C-alpha cells in the first residue's frame, strides 16, 4: 500500500530547464498547482468582475464576496492606512485559499503543505512589513521592541525577548499553515488505508472519512483566513506602533 506521505513527493514533470547553483530546475507538480491556483482564481475573478451587473450573477456575487471580505478585514485590523496594501493582501489570501482547496481535489497536490512554500511566503510578508515600518517611522520603528511604560531597568530582559518574539513571527505564520495542511492530508490517507484494509467493515472509517473531508474544507478556508488576518495584524503593528 502507498505510504501516507507519498502524496507530498515533488516530481519533475519536464526535463530540467536550467540550473541555479547546481540545482536543476524543472517544472514540478508543485509548480503546476501554483500555476493552476493563479489561473483558476484569475479566470473566476475576471469572469466575475467583467459584467459589472447591478444584480450580480453567481460569479460576480462570489467575486464581490471575496472583495468585501478582504476589504472589511483590512478596515477592521489595519484601518484606512491599510487600503494601499489591499492588492497584496487580496492576492495572498486568494493564492493560499486556492492552493489549499485545489489540493483537496483527487490527484491534487497541496503546495501549501510544503514548508518551503509557506515559509517563503511568510518571509516575504515579514520582510515587507519590517521595511514598511522602517520606511514609515525610521529608527523610531525599533521602539516596537520595548513596551511603552515599562521600567527602564527591565530593558536587558525585555528587549531580547521582544526581538525573539518578533523573529518568531514568520516561523509561527508558516508552520501553522504547513502543519495544518500536512496533518489533514496524512489523516485522510491513513483513514483511506483503513477503508481498504477492513473490507466490509471499512464502511465505518468511510463515514468518518466523509466527515473529515468536510472538516478539511473548513480548515482549508480557515487557514487561508488566519494566514491573511495575521498578515493584516503584523501590518497594523508596523504602521501604528503602540
Amino acid at each position, binding site marked *: 500500500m502507498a505510504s501516507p506521505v507519498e502524496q507530498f513527493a515533488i516530481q519533475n514533470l519536464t526535463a530540467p530547464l536550467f540550473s541555479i547553483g547546481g540545482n536543476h530546475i524543472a517544472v514540478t507538480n508543485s509548480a503546476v498547482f501554483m500555476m493552476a491556483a493563479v489561473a483558476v482564481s484569475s479566470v473566476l475573478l475576471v469572469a466575475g468582475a467583467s459584467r459589472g451587473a447591478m444584480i450580480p450573477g453567481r460569479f460576480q456575487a462570489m467575486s464581490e464576496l471575496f472583495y468585501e471580505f478582504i476589504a472589511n478585514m483590512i478596515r477592521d485590523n489595519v484601518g484606512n492606512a491599510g487600503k494601499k496594501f489591499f492588492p497584496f493582501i487580496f492576492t495572498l489570501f486568494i493564492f493560499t485559499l486556492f492552493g489549499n482547496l485545489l489540493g483537496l481535489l483527487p490527484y491534487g497536490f497541496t503546495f501549501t503543505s510544503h514548508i518551503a512554500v509557506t515559509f517563503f511566503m511568510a518571509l516575504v510578508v515579514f520582510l515587507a512589513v519590517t521595511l514598511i515600518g522602517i520606511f514609515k517611522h525610521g529608527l523610531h520603528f525599533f521602539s516596537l521592541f520595548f513596551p511603552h511604560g515599562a521600567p527602564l531597568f527591565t530593558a536587558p530582559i525585555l528587549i531580547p*525577548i521582544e526581538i525573539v518574539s518578533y523573529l518568531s513571527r514568520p*516561523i*509561527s505564520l508558516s508552520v501553522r499553515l504547513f502543519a495544518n495542511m500536512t496533518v489533514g492530508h496524512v489523516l485522510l490517507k491513513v483513514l483511506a488505508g483503513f477503508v481498504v484494509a477492513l473490507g466490509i467493515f471499512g464502511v465505518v472509517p468511510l463515514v468518518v472519512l466523509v466527515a473529515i473531508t468536510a472538516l478539511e474544507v473548513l480548515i482549508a478556508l480557515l487557514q487561508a483566513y*488566519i494566514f491573511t488576518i495575521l498578515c493584516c495584524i503584523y501590518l497594523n503593528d508596523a504602521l501604528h506602533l503602540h
Partner: protein
Amino acid sequence: MAEDERKATPDDLDKRLKSVRQAYQKGVGRSSKPAQSAGGEKLGVGMRVAVELVAGVVAGAFLGLMADRWLGTKPWLLILGFVLGCGAAFLNVYRVAQAEERRGKSPPGTE
C-alpha cells in the same frame, strides 16, 4: 418620485446606506451570523496559541544555536536562546489571549 430625480450628494447616500444597514442589523443580520462562525473561530484561536508556543521556542533556540556556531561558545548561547524563546512564546500567547479578550468585549454586530 420627483425627490429621487434630483442630484443625490454622497452625504445623502451615506445616510441612506446607514439607515438601511441599521434596519438590516435589527432584522436578519444579527441572529444568524455570529453563531455560525463561532466554532471555526475558536478552532483557529486554539491553533494559533499552540503554534505560537512552539514557534517562540524554536526561534530562540535556533538563534542561540547559530550564534554559538558563529562565536564558538558551544552550549551557552543555545541555553540562553532557549530561555529567551520560552519567554517570547509566553509573551506571544499572552498577546493572542489579550487580543481575543478585547474582541470578545466589543458587542456583536459592530464589526
